[in-house]
């Protein structure tokens, strides 16, 4: 069993209205020194396989084919160990 996390963010060069709005909202709430906010998606995926290598390839394939829209989004795959760190 492998716990993994996939994070999908809008590409840097593409402006991110949601992140912008959240940044503004945070300042309105009085939070000082927020330089930038990027808003993305996070997927926690549990896989049957035990092989990290296999899992990683599978997850990257999932991103290319479904989880991320590579036209406007970048993705990142992390394998978490048992206790989900």
């Amino acid at each position, binding site marked *: 069993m492998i716990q993994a996390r996939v994070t999908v963010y809008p590409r840097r060069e593409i402006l991110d209205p949601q992140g912008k709005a959240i940044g503004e909202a945070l300042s309105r709430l009085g939070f000082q020194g927020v330089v930038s906010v990027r808003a993305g998606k996070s997927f926690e995926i549990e896989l049957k396989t035990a092989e990290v290598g296999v899992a990683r390839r599978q997850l990257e394939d999932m991103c290319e084919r479904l989880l991320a*829209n590579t*036209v406007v989004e970048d993705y990142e795959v992390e394998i978490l160990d048992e206790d989900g760190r």
Partner: protein
Amino acid sequence: MKVGVVVFPGSNCDHDVYHAFSHVLNSETVFLWHGDETVQGCDLVVLPGGFAYGDYLRAGALAALSPVMAAVRRHARDGGLVLGICNGFQVLLETGLLPGAMRRNQGLRFLCQDVYLRVERNDLPFTSRLQVGQVLRLPIAHAEGNYEDAPERLDALEDNAQVVFRYCAPDGSICAFDAELNPNGAARAIAGITNPRGNVLGLMPHPERAAEAILGNADGLALLAGTIASFAPSASPPAASPKAEEVRA
């Protein structure tokens, strides 16, 4: 002329499109199931609006994987007509049949209102009954109509004259983001585009919701009627089934 309206789980404008083609325009119209492997010899395939698979993940992303989309892809490759409206447009983008992507509306809210569209070209089957520069008033209803692509790809789109409809003012003048006129903030005010070959059209506004005088607006009728009228039968050679990679171009 046979029209096929694709039904994905969660499509909710399928009946509306069916009504427009079948009852208003009296053309032969059938529903195509998302699990179908063919388009049942339809000449025009319409991907209707709605929330296919709830639009969970990204609008259109899960629907793009349906078996019927492989058939739609073959239909398009063989020169058949494909019209994607709203969620259908998003599915076409996710399938790669049209370039670019949709992001959430600028204001991050679902918007249901009328917009004005300027017709950019009328040499397509879909626009055969429209004039270049003509202004249409059509309803939109979406949360992700904020069209986007890399600048150079947008330039290419313009150079190939693939932009068919733009959000505009009642007088036809184009505005970048405007809370009323281009309320979702689409890049270059793009509301509808076609593929280089001109047989696939995607647009965010809903022509089928403006196709009867009783509803107070029939501006959309010319687009739907023209699409049928202009139709030229497509030669359909035996189709090779697409490779898995093709599913997300």
